[in-house]
């Protein structure tokens, strides 16, 4: 164990959070601050025939009312520029913003919103994914072809992003199989549901705006404000106070520009705080519904000859960051298996639903649920134990994966062994219990990232980083990495973070990338400081810089511990000369090559940098009379490379598993026949409670991966969310004799499957 893996970890923001003194965005109040409220469409597809805000403007206490006419005419979107800040002519989902009001109180703002007159001409609803891809389907965006879009996207009418991965000859492969198994799985959309509803506060001073916002990605939010309001980056400052969870739901650019525009128009600071209902309905970030058809050919010896799959993903009304979902889903439906012949095609389909976007491991839990449930079906046809089938067919070190990537040292086979061991797979169980097993994978994301470090004259340090903390503790972990490089204690450092005008770029709390990329940046910066300290110490101790060792808060000459000087003393010397200030970025690891495959709509997701693997084994109990399932015990084994912060890593596994249980059993968006959400409340959209949480055993398969993050670390936070629902499905299928083909596998759906089995 290195110094960076000290067992006890107290997060730097912990005292703020347990005492209630930590400020979240909704806790901020500025002098003269107004309250913002939005008018939402309320209908899912319609042309606006009349929009009259005059009555709203006349309400006493109203300081600004904005519609599309009041902001620059800009279409935006990271992959397809299909979106405007306010609805322009047509509304395409119920949570689309029509108008925004700023008033002296929230009640007055709401009164003004209610006074706005909007009239609509209904347009045909697009809700079914397969129908939407038909040539005669109504279009969600009639002007789709004229939109700006990333060059790599393959688009056609309601298909916002088509992607395929092909390898070998899939028809020949299926022809040589002894068994061909075909399955269909359908997953409902679901929500990130962080406990903090989002909030934004904006204040202008002169021609510069400061925006406090509950975003996971401050630099993305800044880019969105700059793009839509026509501002240079150096006049927009995004500050994120403590962030009350995100899970992807607070990735992307949301309402920062709306609130900034209101504040500019009102000439007053403005605060927007979402209700829980708004949090459910409006943001362009919910987990995508999917339809997944899979056909697999296998030989009697248990080997896979070919796999063919068709995937439709619910994009919702606008393309948020979902442009890469089709290729990522294609990878996940292929699965971490040895497949010589493959053809997977995926469509990202516009509908009149809330837009989809990156929620913790986008596309993966649903895809894993489908492919892993299918895998157990295949094993059953062969009469093989499903775990043995995985041992035989899962990828491994030096093996070529489905997309033609050959892996370096990876731990998927070890994950299978450890997870099954953790729950005693194979032991005798009561007849209402079963253990299901599933494997999953997830890439690490290699992107640019930066940090500064300074050591002040008293020897105390500050890490000034662009990284964003969403609760995982990843930013908190950066102190350990810097301390290790400098022979200091993590407690010697304070973190300055979540401020775009202070720190260099980082992608944010997204893609499990903070330690992977910003950790490298912090270590590079710390390395510069270390060089400075060594030079100072060498001069002070009359030795060569190359012989100076930094440890325990001191610099000493290697082999001569008595020849030593404290870092505090060196910092004092530096304060009178060349200051201890450094910056780091480092080179992001490059993507491995693919051999023998071809990809259409290639956004770079078919090659996994520092791929992570997992196996979850879950013991459940089924109430056979009602279909109610309880998860009793989970074994989760993960290869996420070297674990830098074990406390934080365990927290990610435990939280990811719990979220996966919710996705498996109780969390799914329900729509009415007008494409409006029916369960936009926490009573009806059921997160798992403390009373539901099972025993969770965890094992880390720690492989020091080259071409990865600090000390061989890979990403972590999303991977635990991948395989849980799939493992629950496989346990259930053992008890029912057939899988439940709808996600979530609600008690009623389980009962329906059970009833169908009984009748067959």
């Amino acid at each position: 164990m290195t110094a960076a893996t000290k067992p006890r970890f107290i997060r730097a923001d912990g005292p703020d959070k347990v005492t209630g003194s930590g400020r979240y965005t909704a806790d901020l109040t500025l002098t003269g601050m107004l309250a913002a409220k939005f008018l939402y469409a309320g209908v899912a597809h319609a042309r606006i025939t009349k929009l009259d805000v005059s009555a709203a403007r006349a309400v006493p206490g109203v300081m600004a009312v904005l519609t599309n006419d009041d902001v620059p005419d800009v279409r935006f979107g990271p992959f397809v520029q299909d979106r405007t800040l306010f609805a322009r002519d047509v509304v395409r989902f119920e949570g689309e913003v029509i108008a925004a009001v700023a008033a002296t109180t929230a009640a007055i703002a709401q009164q003004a919103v209610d006074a706005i007159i909007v009239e609509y001409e209904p347009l045909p609803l697009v809700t079914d994914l397969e129908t939407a891809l038909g040539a005669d389907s109504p279009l969600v965006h009639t002007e789709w072809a004229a939109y700006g879009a990333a060059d790599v996207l393959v688009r056609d009418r309601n298909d916002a992003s088509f992607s395929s991965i092909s390898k070998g000859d899939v028809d020949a492969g299926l022809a040589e199989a002894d068994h061909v198994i075909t399955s269909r799985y359908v997953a409902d959309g679901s929500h990130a549901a962080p406990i903090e509803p989002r909030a934004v506060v904006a204040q202008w001073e002169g021609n510069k705006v400061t925006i406090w916002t509950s975003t996971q990605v401050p630099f993305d939010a800044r880019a969105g404000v700059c793009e839509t309001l026509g501002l240079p980056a150096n006049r927009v400052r995004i500050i994120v106070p403590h962030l009350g969870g995100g899970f992807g739901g607070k990735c992307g650019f949301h309402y920062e520009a709306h609130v900034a525009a209101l504040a500019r128009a009102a000439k007053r600071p403005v605060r927007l705080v979402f209700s829980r209902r708004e949090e459910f309905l409006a943001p362009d970030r919910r987990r995508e519904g999917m339809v997944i058809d899979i056909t697999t050919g296998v030989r009697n010896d248990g080997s896979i000859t070919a796999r063919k799959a068709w995937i439709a993903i619910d994009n919702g009304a606008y393309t948020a960051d979902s442009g890469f979902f089709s290729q990522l889903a294609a990878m996940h439906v292929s699965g971490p298996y040895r497949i010589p012949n493959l053809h997977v095609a995926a469509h990202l389909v516009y509908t009149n639903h809330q837009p989809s976007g990156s929620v913790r491991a986008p596309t993966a839990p649903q895809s894993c649920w489908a492919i892993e449930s299918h895998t157990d079906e295949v094993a059953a046809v062969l009469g093989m134990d499903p775990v043995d089938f995985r041992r035989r067919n899962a990828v491994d070190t030096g093996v070529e994966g489905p997309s033609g990537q050959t892996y370096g040292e990876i731990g998927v086979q070890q994950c299978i062994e450890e997870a099954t061991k953790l729950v005693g797979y194979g032991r005798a169980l009561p007849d209402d219990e079963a253990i299901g097993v599933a494997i999953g994978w997830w890439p690490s994301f290699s992107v640019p990232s930066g940090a500064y470090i300074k050591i002040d004259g008293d020897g105390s340090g500050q890490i000034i980083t662009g990284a964003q903390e969403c609760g995982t503790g990843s930013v908190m972990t950066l102190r350990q990495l810097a301390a290790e490089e400098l022979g200091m204690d993590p407690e010697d450092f304070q973190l300055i973070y979540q401020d775009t005008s202070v720190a260099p770029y980082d992608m944010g709390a997204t893609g499990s990338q903070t330690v992977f990329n910003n950790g490298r940046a912090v270590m590079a910066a710390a390395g510069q400081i270390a060089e400075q300290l060594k030079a100072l110490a060498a001069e002070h101790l009359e030795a060569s810089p190359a012989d100076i060792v930094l440890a325990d808060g001191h610099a000493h000459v290697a082999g001569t511990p008595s020849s030593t000087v404290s870092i505090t003393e060196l910092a004092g010397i530096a304060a009178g000369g060349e200051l201890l200030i450094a910056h780091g970025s480092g080179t992001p690891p490059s993507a491995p090559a693919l051999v023998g495959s071809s990809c259409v709509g290639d956004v770079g997701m078919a090659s996994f940098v520092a791929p992570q693997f997992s196996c979850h084994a879950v013991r459940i109990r089924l109430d056979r009379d009602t279909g109610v399932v309880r998860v009793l015990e989970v074994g989760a084994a993960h290869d996420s490379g070297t674990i830098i912060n074990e406390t934080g890593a365990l927290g990610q596994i435990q939280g990811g598993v719990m979220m996966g249980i919710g996705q498996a059993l109780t969390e799914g968006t329900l729509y009415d026949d007008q494409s409006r959400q029916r369960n936009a409340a926490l009573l009806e959209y059921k997160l798992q409670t403390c009373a539901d949480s099972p025993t969770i055993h965890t094992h880390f398969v720690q492989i020091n991966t080259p071409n990865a993050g600090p000390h061989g670390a890979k990403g972590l936070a999303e991977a635990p969310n991948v395989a849980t629902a799939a493992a629950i499905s496989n346990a259930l299928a053992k008890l029912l004799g057939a899988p439940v083909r709808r996600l979530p596998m609600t008690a009623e759906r389980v009962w329906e499957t059970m009833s169908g089995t009984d009748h067959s």
Partner: protein
Amino acid sequence: MSISINLNVNGVDYPVTIDAGRNLVSVLRTEIGLTGTKEGCDDCECGACMVLIDGQPVNSCSYLAAQAADRPISTVEGVMTGDDLHPLQQALLDEGGVQCGFCTPGMIMSATALLSRNASPTEEEIRIGLSGNLCRCTGYVKILAAVQAAAAQAR
């Protein structure tokens, strides 16, 4: 209708004049300026707004401030003793039971109420005692461990 009442929060009297229809959480956060109590929903479904009234847990989002007049109200800001963290606060830090922190104040209030009426709760009793507080980050494992650790320390 505005009413003038006294709210006793963490042992301090706060005279406030408020609309009679205001819920307690908004008065705590706005008039009294204690923002440690959070709002995560509107309807008793998340527990982020949990406070204690007469030592018992109450969802302050769904409780009229007027009804709390002259009753002892406890919020997360009153849990420390002087500069010392409450053993439960310390245990949450030690065990890693805090992630985003948004559920933490409500969780602390529910847990202190539980421990004050049951010094040695079983794991099941803790699970039920905290079942009105949703946490999306932790999977509850380390929160349970922290409550157990705090209870053990108090014994």
